[in-house]
């Protein structure tokens, strides 16, 4: 079930979809993801090839142009939805992190004042 499969996105999936916010050749994603993440994230060619195929099957991206063996893709509305959901999930995680550490910092500050 592709939808269940992409319920949460891996980092590589997230950045591949992000690259496809605008029409883009599949192969160019191999360079765009490292550039976008200061080489923190890289996508292997086999992984990219298979994920593009799976994203098309799941209706998250669509093929826009075929020039010889070069194919370009763009995010669909459903893909945007998935990306948006993943963004909110990451934001929620970040918010949880901040809340926990802000609280901890505040309580540490209070203890220091009392001391």
């Amino acid at each position, binding site marked *: 079930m592709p939808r269940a499969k992409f319920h949460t996105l*891996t980092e*590589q999936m997230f950045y591949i979809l992000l690259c496809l916010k605008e029409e883009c050749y*599949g*192969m160019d994603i*191999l360079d765009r993801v490292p550039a976008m993440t200061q080489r923190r994230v*890289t*996508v*292997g*060619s*086999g*992984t*990219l*090839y*298979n*994920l593009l195929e*799976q994203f098309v099957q799941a209706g998250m991206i669509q093929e826009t142009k075929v020039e010889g*063996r*070069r*194919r370009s893709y763009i995010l669909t509305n459903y893909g945007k939805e998935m990306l948006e959901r993943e963004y909110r999930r990451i934001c929620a995680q970040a918010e949880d992190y901040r809340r926990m550490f802000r609280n901890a910092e505040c309580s540490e500050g209070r203890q220091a004042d009392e001391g």
Partner: protein
Amino acid sequence: MKDKKRTWEIFSFYDRSGLEKRLAHMAEQGWLVEHIGSFLWTYRRIEPRRLAFCVCWFPKASAFDPEPSAEQQTFYDFCRHTGWIPAASSGQMQVFYNEDADPIPIETDPATEVDAIHRAAKRTTLPSHLVLLVMALINNGLFFSRLRSDPVGVLASTANLFTGTCWAVLILMEAVECGSYVLWHRRAVKAAERGEFLQTKGHRRLQLISLAVVGLGLIYYFVSVLTSANRMMMVVALLMFGVYLPGVYLLVYGVKALLKKKKVSAKINRTATIASAFAVSFLLISGILWGVLYGSANGWLAGTDEETYTYRGSTFTARRDALPLTVEDLLGVSYDGYSCERQTEESVFLARYEMVQRPRFDAAQYKEMPRLEYTITLVKVPALYSLCKDALLADWNDDWRPEGQKDYAVPIASAPWGAEDAYQLANQEYGPENRFLLCYEDLFVEIRFDWEPTPEQIALAVEKIKSINH
């Protein structure tokens, strides 16, 4: 200095880690893989250097594809973009190398990788291995069924033991191959859920040992056949291993290669190759069978002690083998026109000598000439003695005829035969026959007289027959 090198690479079909290590080692030795054949891998000479290798699977590819499909070419383009150069492929398995010291791997997501391997395995490799496993199980079942019904015949036959061993080894190899893949896949899926790649671990040592067992079995089989006096068996073995097996392989492989060269579609190529495998196999087997029967009927396969004769329009074979005991020895009379036949089957467990002295159909005194028949079973492994005795007795007692007409073994005095045990065959309707089963320390004798033997003839028969053991 040779620029090409061919080696037989033995690896599990999913063992990418083992293959990558092996290919990197070969590159360090100055050899780069360039072609993967059915048996042999071809390497070309290069400057020795450290190269990174990646073995991955493209599930949509087929061994019958005339050339890489457009999708596969796109996949290659992706790989080239990150420095991975296609080196060789075999069906769905793709081998790439990279000159970078620290390249971006082709697979960076373990779940995607496991999925690609599993899709490829499910499409071709696993079904082939499962078919082989089922075939091996059926054939091994038949072997054990024969072993149960005729243990003496099977244990004395090198050919039977060789094929039985081959099927058993195949069961072991296929069960380990399929079982270890299933286990690896299950663990790899769990590892992928944690974002980890799971290395593959083949069982190369087991595969090498299994192949060595089959190789030694083959050598033993050939030595037995080539040193036996049975010229027909020798010719059949040589035709099977020298003509049939290489013939089927070369013709079927040739059809596949030719259709690929002619750019025929994978679907048509697959159908034609499978059809040609059946056709070639059938034609070669029929040809060999016909040739052997024709050669035998015309005396071409006759040994030096063999001749053919025609009686009432049919051709028969008569032999002049040396027999340890003859009608002449026992009756002191001499007739012209006997065929003396001796057949030997020998393995590491048993030796079985079947001897018969029968009158030729064209003999002048055919009706007066008595016949003498005896089989000696020499037990080389003492642990098999009871099994053989039970089987030989069961052969007499296990009669399919209705009650009242059955044969059965009757214990008789063993002293006159100088044996440990002696039995006489009797029939419920006709009473005792002149057929005896004699059990000695390490051999059994089944002997059939055309007349009732006297004590003197029995003593002489025992002395002469036992001499075969010395």
